[in-house]
């Protein structure tokens, strides 16, 4: 960084503000924009600064006073220093001083008196000595002690030279003092001729003054010659004359004014008296007209005017007035407590009473009567609806009595009560409306009472009382509601007596109305929240809402559970083939729809948390309850499915159900059992399969949907509940499958042995085999029958059913083969041909276990030489041709899906 700017020269070194100063020095920057700061005696003078060269700046001094530095600041070199200092002084303008400033005339007078001691002169030392560096002042107290009654002020009469010297020059050397003396002496000499020089310098003005004085003299002499020597006497006389005249005029006006005032006073007094004596009548009239404001105004006025009066007449008049006012107060007070009354009217009445200084507590009385009124209305409402309920109950009784035998009538009456809104719901509605209509006024009344808006004095303790009243009303409201809709949450002994009891309608009926109730209660709650009630009062309601929501939810779920139970009667066994899940009936879809509906309902009414409500899901009890209900709901469908699948075990079909052994005919057993043509319910196997399919669908699809929609609606079911239900369904699935398999494979397998030995067949035969034996064919046909049956219901079930059957067949074959005591050659050939054919045809549905059984069965049969095994090949070839259709039936469907069988 280059060296900072330094100021080395000033021209001039002192001057009044605005003095043009040439500042010289070094490093003032290379261009005018480098100059960014200039301070003269602490005053910023950058505005007037004119950059001339790196060594020169011209500026004008600011208003700074006394000695100070000139500091230049440049962009590159920073804040500078200063070797020389500038002294600013404030020039005082005197009449003798040339000035470019307009001189005000007023201060000139001041100047006239002090012109001998101009300010600049005082600054100069009279000895011409510098007082610079003479910092150590002589203490003034000491000076006062030394020279009493004297002063160091040169212009003073008591000037003391010693004081002056001690004060200003007690440090000055003797030599300097001598020089000062010389200086003073020379000055005095100079002043002697100075007078002459002063006149010389100001000759123009002196001449002017002389001229003016001469003119004045002329004028005066002229006047004297015209008016005589005493020119002022005439003037004096005129002034006195006019003064006398003026006084005369003024006195006249004054007396007139006094008279007017007296008259006015008298009139005032008269008016006041008339006001007093007429007042009773006026009050009567105004009360009749209902102009209470005027009455109050008059009453206050009369009290101010005559209250302290001792005059008996006035007292009588006053007492007359008082009587009327007391009557008015009583009337207003009664009016105030007569309910119902709009709050504005009430407030107005309170104001009247307060203004009339009534001996009541109008505001508090109003509040009390209002709260009583609310309680009364509650009770009335209850009684009204209770009566309604009783009437309905009586009517029902009558109907029951008259037509109790008829099933139809029962249905009819329940239908009626479904249509008619239950009385307790109506009660809830009315009660909510009552509270939202009446309570805000009470609260507002209370608020304005306590904020002093009513100008009534607030009695100590009323605040707590009012709170108590509010809490009681809210509490009563909640308890009454509870008793109407959720009596089980009430404290039995204490509250039931207080708020009365209701008969709760059936769950089906009430479920319809609960969301409506919730809506009413919520809207009331919203109104209360807006009122800015204390949180304790609001908490009562919010707890109630929580309980109610919980109840509402469980009722909804219970109702749905009930509806799901009803589903079993709605099963029409119509199989739907549409969609990805073929082979199901409408049942699971209906179930899903029901559940979705209830979820939506719950979500809409219960789960949504509105302003200042406790969220149902955050409540542990509620969560548990919900989990339980949902589990019950889902499980109910399980029961439905189960009962559908197995119900007919107990019903009247049992006689037909025993397994029929005569399979050899090749006709499916079901043909016999379809005799009951007018029944919609299909055969048992079919139902079993359908239910199985439904169960699978429910387990795999519906449950997933339901659980997802629970989550989507902001409620995550606990894993456990879902798992429990899933396990239930899975076990049901297994049970169904087992039942079906048992039912199907037992007779199928059972027929193999009798068919094998039909006609006293012996494996030790000598008949050369020409075809596979009928038992094998029968076996295949039976299997195809099972396949078709399963496939009709649901192709997807084929995969789980057929392999099981095949495995049982293979096992039975193995057992039969191992029981054969002796094989002839022909028997061996026959057996091998049979089993190979079966193995080949059943291959598509063979489990590894089944394959092993087939191989084991083959192993048991003694082996053949190559020459004698050709016959087996021939038989197999033949079979392939003859049984082409059957083979196609089993193989293609397994590989290619549905093919017409």
């Amino acid at each position, binding site marked *: 960084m280059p060296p900072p700017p330094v100021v080395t*020269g000033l021209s001039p070194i002192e001057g009044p503000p605005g003095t043009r100063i*040439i500042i010289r020095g070094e490093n003032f920057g290379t261009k005018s924009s480098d100059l960014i700061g200039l301070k003269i005696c602490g005053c910023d003078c950058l505005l007037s600064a004119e950059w001339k060269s790196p060594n020169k700046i011209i500026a004008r001094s600011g208003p700074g006073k006394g000695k100070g530095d000139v500091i230049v600041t440049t962009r590159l070199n920073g804040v500078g220093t200063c070797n020389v200092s500038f002294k600013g002084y404030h020039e005082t303008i005197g009449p003798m001083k040339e000035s470019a400033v307009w001189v005000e005339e007023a201060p000139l007078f001041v100047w006239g008196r002090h012109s001998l001691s101009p300010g600049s002169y005082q600054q100069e030392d009279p000895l011409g000595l510098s007082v610079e560096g003479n910092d150590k002042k002589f203490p003034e107290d000491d000076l006062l002690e030394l020279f009493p009654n004297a002063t160091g002020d040169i212009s003073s009469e008591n000037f003391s030279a010693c004081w002056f010297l001690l004060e200003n020059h007690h440090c000055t050397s003797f030599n300097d003092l001598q020089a000062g003396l010389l200086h003073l002496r020379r000055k005095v000499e100079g002043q002697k001729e100075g007078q002459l020089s002063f006149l010389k310098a100001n000759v123009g003005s002196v001449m002017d003054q002389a001229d003016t004085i001469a003119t004045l003299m002329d004028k005066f002499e002229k006047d004297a010659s015209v008016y005589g020597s005493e020119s002022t006497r005439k003037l004096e006389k005129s002034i006195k004359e006019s003064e006398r005249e003026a006084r005369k005029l003024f006195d006249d006006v004054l007396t007139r004014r006094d008279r007017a005032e007296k008259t006015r006073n008298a009139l005032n007094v008269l008016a006041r008296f008339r006001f007093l004596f007429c007042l009773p009548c006026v009050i009567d009239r105004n009360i009749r007209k209902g102009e209470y404001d005027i009455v109050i105004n008059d009453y206050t006025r009369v009290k101010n005017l005559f209250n302290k009066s001792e005059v008996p007449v006035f007292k009588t008049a006053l007492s007359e007035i008082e009587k009327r006012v007391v009557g008015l107060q009583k009337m207003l007070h009664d009016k105030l407590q007569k309910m119902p009354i709009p709050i504005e009217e009430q407030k107005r009445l309170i104001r009247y009473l307060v203004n009339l200084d009534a001996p009541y507590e109008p505001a508090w009385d109003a509040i009390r009567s209002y709260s009583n009124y609310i309680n009364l209305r509650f009770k009335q409402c209850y009684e009204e609806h209770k009566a309604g309920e009783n009437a309905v109950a009586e009517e029902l009784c009558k109907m029951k009595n008259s037509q109790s035998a008829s099933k139809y009538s029962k249905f009819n009456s329940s239908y009626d009560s479904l249509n008619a809104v239950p009385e307790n719901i109506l009660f809830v509605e009315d009660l909510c409306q009552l509270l939202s209509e009446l309570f805000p006024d009470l609260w507002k009344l209370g608020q304005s009472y306590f904020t002093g808006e009513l100008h009534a004095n607030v009695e100590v303790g009323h605040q707590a009382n009012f709170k108590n009243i509010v809490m009681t009303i809210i509490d009563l409201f909640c308890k009454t509601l509870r008793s109407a809709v959720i009596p089980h949450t009430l404290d039995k002994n204490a509250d039931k007596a207080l708020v009365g009891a209701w008969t709760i309608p059936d769950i089906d009926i009430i479920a319809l109305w609960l969301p409506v109730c919730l809506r009413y209660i919520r809207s009331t709650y919203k109104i209360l929240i807006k009122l800015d009630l204390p949180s304790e009062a609001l908490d009562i309601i919010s707890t109630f809402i929580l309980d109610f929501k919980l109840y509402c939810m469980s009722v909804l779920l219970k109702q749905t559970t009930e509806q799901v139970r009803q589903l079993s009667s709605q099963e029409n066994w119509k199989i739907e083939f549409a969609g990805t899940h073929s082979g199901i009936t409408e049942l699971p879809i209906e179930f899903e729809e029901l559940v979705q509906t209830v979820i939506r309902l719950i979500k809409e009414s219960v789960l949504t948390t509105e302003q200042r409500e406790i969220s149902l899901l955050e409540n542990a009890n509620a969560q548990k309850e919900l989990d339980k209900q949902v589990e019950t709901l889902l499980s109910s469908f399980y029961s439905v499915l189960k009962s559908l699948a197995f119900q007919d075990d107990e019903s009247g079909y049992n006689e037909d159900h025993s397994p029929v052994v005569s399979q050899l005919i090749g006709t499916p057993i079901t043909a016999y059992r379809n005799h009951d043509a007018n029944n919609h319910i299909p055969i048992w196997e079919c139902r079993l399969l359908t239910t199985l399919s439904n169960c699978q669908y429910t387990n795999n699809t519906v449950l997933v949907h339901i659980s997802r929609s629970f989550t989507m609606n902001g409620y995550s079911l606990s894993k456990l509940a879902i798992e429990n239900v899933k396990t239930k369904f899975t076990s049901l699935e297994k049970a169904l499958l087992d039942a079906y398999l048992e039912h199907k494979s037992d007779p199928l397998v059972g027929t193999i042995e009798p068919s094998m030995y039909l006609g006293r067949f012996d494996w030790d035969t000598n008949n050369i085999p020409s075809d596979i034996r009928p038992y094998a064919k029968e076996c295949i046909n039976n299997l195809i029958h099972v396949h078709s049956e399963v496939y009709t219901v649901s192709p997807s079930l084929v995969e789980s059913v057929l392999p099981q059957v095949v495995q049982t067949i293979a096992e039975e074959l193995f057992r039969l083969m191992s029981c054969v005591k002796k094989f002839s050659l022909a028997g061996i050939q026959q057996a091998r041909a049979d089993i190979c054919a079966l193995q080949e045809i059943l291959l598509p549905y063979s489990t590894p276990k089944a394959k092993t059984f087939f191989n084991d069965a083959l192993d048991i049969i003694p082996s053949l030489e190559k020459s004698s095994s050709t016959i087996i090949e021939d038989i197999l070839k033949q079979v392939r041709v003859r049984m082409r259709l059957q083979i196609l039936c089993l193989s293609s469907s397994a590989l290619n899906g549905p093919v017409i069988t």
Partner: protein
Amino acid sequence: MSKKPVTQPALHKVIMVGSGGVGKSALTLQFMYDEFVEDYEPTKADSYRKKILLDGEEVQIDILDTAGQEDYAAIRDNYFRSGEGFLCIFSITEDESFQATQDFREQILRVKNDENIPFLLVGNKCDLEERRKVTYQEASDRAKQWGVTYVETSAKTREHVDKVFFDLMREIRARKMEENKTNNGRGKDKNKRKKIKCVIL
């Protein structure tokens, strides 16, 4: 100034005196800034101060450029009292200014009350030889009479400008050294004794 460290170089206070328009300011500005100002602007009182090398020693020179006009004669006494050396300047083209040097000399002597005050008589504007009114002889006679040096300068050509300032400073320095010597013996002791006295009293 006392706040600054003690190593502050010696300060020599020079005062320019002489009639109006003889070139006091021109000489000063030429010496300080190598600048020659053509325009005439009467000075009231200007002050300049800078560091210079005097015979290898760093000193500070403080130049007080005073007003030549009679109007300011009254305030001169004040200024003169603080001066340590004087350059009394006249213009060789103006006899009146040469005559006025007599008055200045007297005033200085009266104020300083010292015959041997460092003082140089300077005849300025020596570049205007053709307009010379005061002969060299005349001026140097007067200087001899006063016991001072006479130098002719030109603020325009910078002839002898540095010389007059440096000569004067050397005189001031010599003078100060001499004073220190005489004062050291007496002055200090005197001060000390006085102080002790006060304590005893």
